[in-house]
C-alpha cells in the first residue's frame, strides 16, 4: 500500500489520509478530499483519516463500495422506500380485503380502474414483493458498508491521537485563541479546570489533549449494528424452525393435541367465555356509548388445561398428565415452552349432540319406538336401536344451506346440522329415507311409515387458538435495544476535545466537538475562569459575519 510521509513529523500515513495521523497537519496531496484548502478551517470529519471509499475508485469492487458508503445514496434509498411504503397504503393490502374475495376481481370491482392497475402492479402485496425486499436489503447493505468505511479508520485515528499537534492544526480549528503570556500557574489552573469537568487529560512535553465523551462517536455505529441485527432477525422468520404459525379449534370439553408439539402437549377447553359490556354495574358509565354503538365485546376467554403426554410411542394411547391450568384471553396469551397460544377466534353455540326418536308417521302422540343420539363431532355411520330398528347416516351437513336447491354445508362447524337418514324398520332391508335437521323434517317419498323426530340437543362453544412459536423475537429485542442505546449514545453526548499548545511564553488553545459547540464553549469558559488565558473565538461564526 502506498504511504504518504508527513512533511512536518515524518509520520508514514496510509494513502488517502487527509490530516496526518500523528500531528494533524493537513497532508498536501490529500487535503482537498474533504473540501480542505490551505486557508479555511479544517474539515475534521472522521479525523481526516483515510477512508477506503475516498481513496480507491478503480475496480468494480471499489465502485460498489463507494456507492453504498455514500450517505447520499443511503438517504436516497430510505426516501425511495418511504415512498414505496406509502404507495402500499393507497388501497388495502391483500390481507385486509375480505378473505373470501378474489383479489383479481375485488380491486377492480371496488376501486375501479385505479384498483385494477394497483392489483396488476402487484401493489396489493407490496410489502412482500421482491422489489420491496430488495430495497430493504439495499438499505441494509448501505448501512453495513457505510459504517465499516467510517468506523475502522475513525477508531484507528482516535486510538492513536497524540497531544502534540501541528500549529496549523491548532490554528485552523473552529474554536481557537492565542495568548502571548501565560504563567505556569494559569496553565495548571486551566488543566485543573478541565479535569474538574471530567475531561481526560494526556500530556506530552507541555502539549495537552483534554478529551471527553469519545464513546459517543460510536453511537451511529452501535445503532446501525442494532438495525442490522433487527433486519437479520426479521429475515430469520423465513427459516422454518424459527417460526411456526398454526391454529387449532378446541370445543368445550374436548382435549386436543397442540399442533407443532409433536404430541407432547394437549389442551383441554374447559369453558369458553364471551362477555359484552353492559352486564355489570360498573359498565353503567358506558351507557351512552353503548347506546350509540351497539354491543361491544368485553372479554374473550378460554379456560384451558394443558397436559403433557408421557407416552412417546407413536400410535399408542397418550398418557396425559396435567401441567397447568390457566385462562387464555386476548392480550394474555398462554406461554408454554416457547410456544404461545393466542385467543384469536370462536364459535358460539355449536351443536354438540342431537337426539332423535323414531315414531310412527301417523301417531299423533309421537310415541317413542326407538331413540338414538348423534355425536356431532364424530357421528357414527350406523345405529342399532331398540325394537329392531337400525339407522344409518347417508349424508351429514354440518352447516346446512341450500345452494340453488342442492343441500350443502357452509363450513365444518356443526352450526346448523342436517342429516339424510336411512331408517331400517324391524326385520327389513328396505330403508326409508328421511331428511332431518333443525326445524326440518322431510319425508323423501311421502310414504314413510316411520318418522325421525328431533327430541333434544346439546350445544357448546368452540375456541379458536393460534399456536405460535417465534424464536426470532429475542433477536429482534436485542437489535431494538442496541439500536436505542446507540441512538442515545450518539445523540446526547458529544465528543469534546481541547488542545493546549505551548508557545514560547504563552499558549494556543483549540477546541473541537462533533456536535454542540455551544456546550464546548461553556466548558472552556469555565476552565479558563480566573486565568489570563484568552477565551476561544468561534472562527466559523466570525467567517459568517464577514
Amino acid at each position: 500500500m502506498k504511504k504518504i510521509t508527513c512533511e512536518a513529523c515524518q509520520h508514514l500515513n496510509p494513502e488517502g489520509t487527509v490530516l496526518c495521523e500523528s500531528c494533524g497537519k493537513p497532508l498536501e496531496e490529500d487535503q482537498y478530499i474533504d473540501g480542505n484548502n490551505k486557508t479555511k478551517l479544517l474539515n475534521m470529519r472522521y479525523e481526516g483519516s483515510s477512508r477506503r471509499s475516498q481513496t480507491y475508485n478503480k475496480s468494480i469492487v471499489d465502485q460498489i463500495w463507494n456507492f453504498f458508503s455514500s450517505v447520499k445514496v443511503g438517504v436516497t434509498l430510505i426516501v425511495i422506500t418511504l415512498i414505496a411504503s406509502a404507495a402500499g397504503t393507497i388501497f388495502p393490502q391483500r390481507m385486509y380485503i375480505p378473505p373470501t374475495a378474489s383479489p383479481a376481481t375485488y380491486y377492480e370491482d371496488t376501486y375501479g380502474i385505479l384498483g385494477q392497475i394497483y392489483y396488476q402492479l402487484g401493489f396489493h402485496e407490496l410489502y412482500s414483493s421482491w422489489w420491496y425486499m430488495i430495497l430493504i436489503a439495499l438499505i441494509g447493505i448501505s448501512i453495513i458498508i457505510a459504517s465499516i468505511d467510517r468506523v475502522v479508520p475513525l477508531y484507528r485515528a482516535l486510538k492513536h491521537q497524540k497531544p502534540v499537534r501541528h500549529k496549523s492544526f491548532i490554528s485552523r480549528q473552529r474554536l481557537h485563541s492565542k495568548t502571548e503570556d501565560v504563567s505556569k500557574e494559569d496553565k495548571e489552573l486551566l488543566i485543573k479546570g478541565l479535569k474538574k469537568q471530567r475531561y481526560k487529560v494526556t500530556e506530552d512535553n507541555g502539549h495537552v489533549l483534554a478529551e471527553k465523551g469519545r464513546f459517543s462517536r460510536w453511537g451511529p455505529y452501535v445503532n446501525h449494528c442494532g438495525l442490522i441485527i433487527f433486519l437479520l432477525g426479521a429475515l430469520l422468520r423465513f427459516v422454518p424452525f424459527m417460526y411456526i404459525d398454526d391454529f387449532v379449534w378446541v370445543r368445550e370439553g374436548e382435549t386436543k393435541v397442540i399442533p407443532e408439539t409433536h404430541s407432547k402437549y394437549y389442551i383441554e377447553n374447559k369453558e369458553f367465555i364471551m362477555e359484552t359490556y353492559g352486564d355489570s354495574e360498573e359498565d353503567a358509565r358506558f351507557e351512552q356509548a353503548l347506546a350509540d354503538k351497539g354491543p361491544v365485546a368485553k372479554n374473550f376467554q378460554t379456560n384451558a388445561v394443558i397436559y403433557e403426554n408421557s407416552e412417546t410411542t407413536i400410535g399408542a394411547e397418550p398418557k396425559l398428565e396435567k401441567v397447568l391450568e390457566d385462562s387464555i384471553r386476548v392480550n394474555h396469551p398462554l406461554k408454554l415452552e416457547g410456544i404461545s397460544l393466542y385467543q384469536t377466534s370462536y364459535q358460539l353455540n355449536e351443536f354438540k349432540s342431537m337426539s332423535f326418536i323414531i315414531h310412527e308417521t301417523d301417531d299423533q302422540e309421537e310415541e317413542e319406538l326407538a331413540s338414538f343420539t348423534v355425536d356431532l363431532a364424530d357421528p357414527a355411520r350406523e345405529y342399532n336401536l331398540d325394537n329392531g330398528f337400525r339407522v344409518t347416516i347417508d349424508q351429514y351437513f354440518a352447516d346446512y344451506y341450500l345452494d340453488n336447491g342442492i343441500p350443502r354445508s357452509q363450513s365444518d362447524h356443526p352450526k346448523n346440522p342436517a342429516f339424510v337418514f336411512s331408517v331400517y324398520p324391524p326385520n327389513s332391508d328396505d330403508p326409508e329415507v328421511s331428511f332431518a335437521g333443525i326445524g326440518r323434517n322431510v319425508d323423501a317419498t311421502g310414504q314413510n311409515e316411520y318418522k325421525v323426530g328431533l327430541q333434544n340437543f346439546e350445544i357448546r362453544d368452540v375456541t379458536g387458538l393460534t399456536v405460535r412459536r417465534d424464536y426470532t423475537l429475542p433477536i429482534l429485542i436485542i437489535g431494538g435495544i442496541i439500536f436505542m442505546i446507540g441512538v442515545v449514545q450518539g445523540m446526547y453526548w458529544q465528543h469534546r476535545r481541547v488542545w493546549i499548545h505551548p508557545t514560547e511564553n504563552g499558549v494556543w488553545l483549540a477546541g473541537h466537538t462533533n456536535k454542540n459547540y455551544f456546550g464546548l464553549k461553556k466548558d472552556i469558559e469555565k476552565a479558563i475562569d480566573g486565568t489570563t488565558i484568552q477565551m476561544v473565538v468561534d472562527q466559523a461564526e466570525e467567517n459568517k459575519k464577514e
Partner: protein
Amino acid sequence: MGDLITISSNFLYVAFILYLIATLFFGGSIRGKKQQEKVTMSSKIAIVLTIAGFLAQLGYFITRWIASGHAPVSNLFEFTTFFGMMIVFAFIILYFIYKLNILGVFTLPVALLIIAYASMFPREISPLVPSLKSHWLYIHVTTVSLGEAILAVSFAAGLIYLIKVVDQTKKSKKTTLLEIILYSLFATLGFVIITSVFSAVNYNATFEFPFEGEISEVDYHLPPIAGPNDGELLTTERMDSLFEAPGWMQGVNAARKFNTLIWSLLTGYGLYMIARLILRKRVAAAIQPLLKNTNADLVDEVSYRAVAFGFPIFTLGGLVFAMIWAQEAWNRYWGWDPKEVWALITWFFYAAFLHLRLSQGWHGEKSAWLAVIGFAIIMFNLIAVNLIIAGLHSYA
C-alpha cells in the same frame, strides 16, 4: 360517575382558556425591540399560565381516567386531546432550556387547534374492546404522542425560521408553500368553527345508501355537499347533495367524512381570504416583521434538538412498544396495517432528516422545510389515515 365526567370536562375547558391567554402574553413578550430570549414580565406570566393550563389538563386526564376506568387515550377525542397536552408539555421543557418566547407564540396555537379539533369528536367515555385492554397499549400511545409532540415543536420552530428567512418581497414557490402551510392551520380552525355552528343548531340530514351489499344509513351533521355514493336523502326539508362522493372511499362513513373535509377547506379558505383582505399582504409576510428580533440560529437549533429528542422517543413508542403490544394482542409484531406503515414512514423520514443534517450539513432553511414536512406526515397519519384509510387502528 357523572359528576366526575363534568369536573373532567371543566378542567379541559379551563386548560383551553389558560393556553389561550398564555398565547396572548407570549405575544406581548415579543413586542418591542428587546432580544426575544429575554425573560420579561409578560413572558413570566405567560409561562406560569401555560403551566397552570397544563396542570388543569392533567386534572382532566386523571379525573377522566378514574371515571372511565382506563387511560383516556382510547378514542379519537381522547387521543387527540392527549396529543395536545403533550405538545404543551414538550414546549414547557424546551422553553426552560432555551427561554424562547416566540416558540410559545407558535406552539401554543398549534396545541389549541389540536385540542379544539379533538373536541369536535364524540366525547362520551367508551368501553374498550379486548384487544385494547393492555398496559402496552397505554405505554405505546403515551410515548408515541410524546414523541410526536416534541416533533410538533420542531415543526413550530421550523415554521418560525421559515417565516423569518423566506424572502417576502416577491412571490415565489417558497412563499406559496408557506401560505399553504398557514392555510392548513386556517382549515383546521374552519373545521372547528363550521362543526360547532351546525352542531349548535342540531343540523341533521339522513342518507340511505348501499354499502357492502346492504342498505346503510348515515347521518350528516353538516349540509351535504358530497353525498354518499348512490345515496338517497331521507330527511325532508334538507338540501340534497350537490354531488356524490367517489365510490372508492372506504368505510361506511367515508362520504360523510369527505363532506366534512370539503366544508373545512371551504371555511378555512374563507377565513384565510378575510385575513388576507385585512392584512393586505401574504399572511407570512404580515408575521415576518414580528420576528425581526428573533435569533434564527437559535430557532434552528431548537428545531433540530427537538428532533434529536423526538426521534428516539417516537421510535420507542411508535415502533418498539407498538410491536410489543401487537405481538401480545394480535400475535404478530408487525402487520402492515396503514397506521403502522405510516409510523414506519415517519420514522424513515426523520432518519433521513438526521442524516441530511448531521452528514450533509443541511442546516437552517433546508432543515426547517424538513421539519415542516415531517409534521405534515405525522398529521397525515393522525388525521387522514383515520379518515380515508380504515384499518385496525381506525377510531372513528
